[in-house]
Each structure stands twice: as C-alpha cells, then as structure tokens.
C-alpha cells in the first residue's frame, strides 16, 4: 500500500512528539520542521524506518528570512522515497548568530557539496562536515552573499562606468561633449560620470 502523508505525519509524531511541528501539505508535498538539534535524528529516522525509507536526498538548500528573529536561517531538505514515490520537505531553523547545524554527509554523500554551497551563500556552519569551504565563490570572500542584507545593485545607479553594458557612462543623448567630437578619450573617461 502506498505511503500517504498522514501515515508519515503519524509516524513522526509518534516518534518525536510535539518537537516536529508545522505540518503542511500544500501542493501535495508534506513539509514540516524540527529543532535543529534533532535534524540528524529525524533524517536517520526517515532513512531507517522500514516503512518510510526516505533514502534519496533530492535537494538541500538554505533560506534566509531576516523577519524571523532567532530563526533567521533555514536549511531545507527535500527527501524522496523512491519505492513509494513520495517526496517530503523537512526544514530546520537556526539563529544567524550561531548558525551551527549537524552535517548530513554521514548519511548522504550528496550532501557534501550541497552543504558547502549552503555554507558558501548563507554561512551555515555544518558541524562535522569533512571539507567545509567555499565552493562557488572565491575563497577570499568575507561575507555570505545570499543573505538578505546584501541587496542587489540598484539598476538605476549612475556612478559606475558601465558603458559597455548599455547603461550609465557616456550614453547621454545630445550632450554637447559627445556631439562635438573634440573630447579626447581621457577627458571622456574623466567626465563620463557627470554627463547622463
């Protein structure tokens, strides 16, 4: 008999009581959360329990929500039971000031790089990870760029020489200097920011 979301929820609450919470079934996928200390226990339980068998880690990623004080960062696991073809989403929250979470690399080899990626972009410190260093960004980077405190560049900014990319710079239409043709390249560069 196929595994249903209700059965999974029952099994989890029977094992962990009210520590697993926030059950939700939107778009048919069961999602829930647990305290971060329990993440490995929950993953192990989901992996080992003969009726659950969530043995495929589809995805692992971080989420930052500065509004949630004390649980700003989340790590989201997407698990898949390939035999019964059931997916679920499990997340743990951590404070941004002490973002320590146990690593899942012992259970899933695939978690290795995905945790490195999460560390790289959100600064989640995976305790026990064999090789926790940046993966996509340069090693010298001193911040975690996907956190919300790093906004994307304002697209209307004009203080940058982006002429080659079609904005800012000396793209001013009908300005005297660009029409006269007497401005040297060096002068253009110097005054480029003021033209617009």
């Amino acid at each position, binding site marked *: 008999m196929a595994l249903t979301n209700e059965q999974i929820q029952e099994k989890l609450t029977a094992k962990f009581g009210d520590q697993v919470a926030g059950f939700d079934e*939107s*778009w048919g*996928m069961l*999602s829930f959360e647990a305290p971060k200390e329990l993440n490995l226990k929950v993953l192990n339980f989901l992996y080992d329990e003969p009726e659950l068998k969530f*043995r*495929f*880690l*589809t*995805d692992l*990623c971080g*989420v*930052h*929500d500065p509004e949630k004080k004390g649980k700003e960062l989340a790590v*989201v696991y*997407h698990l898949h039971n*390939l035999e019964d*073809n059931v*997916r679920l*989403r499990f997340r743990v929250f951590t404070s941004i000031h002490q973002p320590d979470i146990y690593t899942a690399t012992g259970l*899933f*080899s*695939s978690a*290795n*790089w*995905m945790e490195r*990626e999460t560390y790289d*972009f959100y600064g989640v410190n995976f305790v026990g990870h064999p090789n926790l260093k*940046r*993966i*996509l*960004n*340069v090693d010298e980077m001193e911040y975690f*760029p*996907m956190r919300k405190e790093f906004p*994307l560049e304002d697209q209307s900014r004009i203080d940058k020489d982006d002429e080659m990319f079609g904005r800012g710079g000396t793209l001013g239409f009908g300005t005297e200097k660009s029409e006269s043709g007497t401005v040297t390249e060096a002068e253009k560069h110097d005054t480029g920011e003021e033209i617009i």
Partner: protein
Amino acid sequence: MSEQHIKLPEGSIEKTTTTLNLGPTHPATHGVMQNILELDGERIVSTEQTIGYIHRAFEKIAERRPLYQITPLTDRLNYCSAPLNNMGWHLTCEKLLGVSTPKRVDYLRVIVMELARISDHLICNSIVGVDSGAYTGFLYVMQYRELIYEIYEEICGSRLTTNIGRIGGFERNFNDIAFQKIEKFLDEYPRVLKEFENLFTRNRIFMDRLIGAGPISAERALNYGFTGPNLRAAGVDYDVRISNPYSSYQDFDFSVPVGTTGDCYDRFLVRNEEMWQSLSIIRQAMQKLTEFKGAEADVYHADVPEYYLPKKEDVYTKMEALIWHFKIIMGEIDMPKGEVYHSIEAANGELGYYMISDGGRAPARLHFRRPCFIYYQAYEELTKGSMLSDAIIVMSSLNLIAGEMDA
C-alpha cells in the same frame, strides 16, 4: 611508490606523486572547471574538483526579477538543452500560480523538450567519442543538432539560449516550417542515429576504452544523488517523467532504458536508447497533434491574463489588454504566497526548482537543483585508481555542463 623504482639520491626528490591540473581551460574538460589530479605514474591517487569559474549568482539575481524575466536565466544553466530548463521553469511557475495548460500546449512542449533531450544526448555521446579518439561521429551528428536548432529558431527565434515558451504556453503557434522541419528530423534522424551506433556501439576500440571506466553501483549512485541517464546506467529505473508526470507525459508510451554496471559504456548505451525513445515520443506527439480539430487545433497558450502577454492588436485597441501588458512588462503583479518544488527530467537528470514566494513580485528564494552539480562530487570515487585517460572519458560521459554546475 613501489620498490622497483630507481633509487634516487637522498633529498633529490621529496614528492612521489605528480600533480596535474586538468582545467579550468583544458580542452578535455569541455567547460570551465578544474580537476586537480594527484597521479602516481599514470594512475590517479586522488582528485579534487574546483568549480565556480562561471558562477553568475542566478539565485540572487532571481530574487529581484518578475517570473518571466527569470526564464532567460534558466537558459544559461544547461545550455546544451536550454528548452528543457525553460519548460521546467514555466511548469514551476504554473504550479505556483495554479495554471492548467491545454493538452495541445502540453504536446507542443513535449515535442520541444524531447528535441532538446536528443540534442543534449547527441552532443554528450559524440563527445565521448571525441575523447576516446573518434572524431568522425561528432562531426557527422552535428548537422542534426543544427537541424534541431533550426527548429527552435522557427518556434522562438533563437537557437542556443532559447527563452522558449511563456508561462501558460508559447508566445506564438508553431509555424508550418517548424512542423516541416520536425517531420524532416523524424524522417532523417533515425538513419543517422543508426549509423552513429554502427560506428560506436560494437567498435572494439571504443568498447575497450569505455567498458569498466568509471563504474558506480546503484547504491552509491543513489547515495551520491545521481539522477537521469547516469543513475539509470547504474540500474535504477528512476525517471521523473514516469514517477511524477508533468506536461501530459502520462499520455505517451515509452520505456526507460537501464544499464547494469554504471560505467561509461552503460551511460553511452542508455543515452543512445533514450534518443530512440525520444524520437518515438515526438512521433506520438505529432500524431496526437493531428487529432485536434477546429478551434482546438490553434490553441497554443492557456488563458492567464496576469502572466501571458495579450495580443499586440488588443494592446493598441483595448484598455484592459493595455493594462495587463503594462503590468506584466513592468513586473507589477503580486504572486500568490507559497512554496513549490517542481522537477522535470532534464537531459542530465532531475532538474528541480524550489521557489518560495512571500506574495511579492519576485521570488523570495529560488533554488535550482542542478543535477550535474550534485553528481560531479562523485568524480573522485569514479576515477580513483584508474588511468588518466579514463578520467577524461568519465568526465565527458557524465555530461558535466559548467553552466549548470555553477548556476
């Protein structure tokens, strides 16, 4: 180092292994990635992969873009089969927005997706040939990738980074030339694929090079998060098209080829067989398209005024259409709140989009599950103890696409 080696004068050389940098701009990496190989003679002791050379922060950029502007970002993930990424993204948006597409749109999408799968597998398999010393096959099949690109061009106007389709369907109906070219492809390609198989499949040299190179067991492959042809080559029949059908794949009859040993040769065979299956799916879809009659035969998009641009003549003549046009272009439509994960069977495996919307105009968080980012970490296990030349074959037969890895 073994003892038969010549005894070197004391202190003359400390290190007994050679470090070799394979990449980031080595021709054999077929993309910008680096493998630092530690070699004992020609045998690989350990490898370390460095990736991220073309990281473009798509996930961050997406946090400020309206949905339709994210499609061109997905083009640049696996650029060998951009339409698959586009479709996966549209399907994710449609899931969040609760849009259901007409059957005809689904079938048109299936045609485009399977063409993209063929073009991706075609390149991967012929590159395996190139890396094992057989250049002919690559050049021979290249003209059929060209034909596939021409079909894309007829459908959407571009070839490589396609930005094909829209939320709810396609920007315009397929024209007659597109259908003629698809027919031409269906007509000519089987012969070419057969010829390609004749060149490679039972070729003694090719077999000797590939069989046993970079094998992986089903259990390890699952643990490493393999999906797609690489997982199926290890013997697991997991295919998102079957397990979680999207875009009406349940209406099609096709089989899922699996291998046994998970080595390069099995990966090659699985990809080849998938091309045959894709051909059969396209044929079925073309057949199904002929069954639409009357007004149904011209449907190419769903009715989603909030996200699908109105017709140009309506924009100029009708107030409502003008408002929608403006709102869509300026990205001023608030999305419903929610969290969706949607995945499709891309050419490399399960391509997933995890989108969190907080009710704003751009996703609060968008994460791409890029299959080749996940399985590339198994590279060390696949190549340890094998020869240097195997390392190159393994790399090409895994189909590593730097754009997808680095997002």
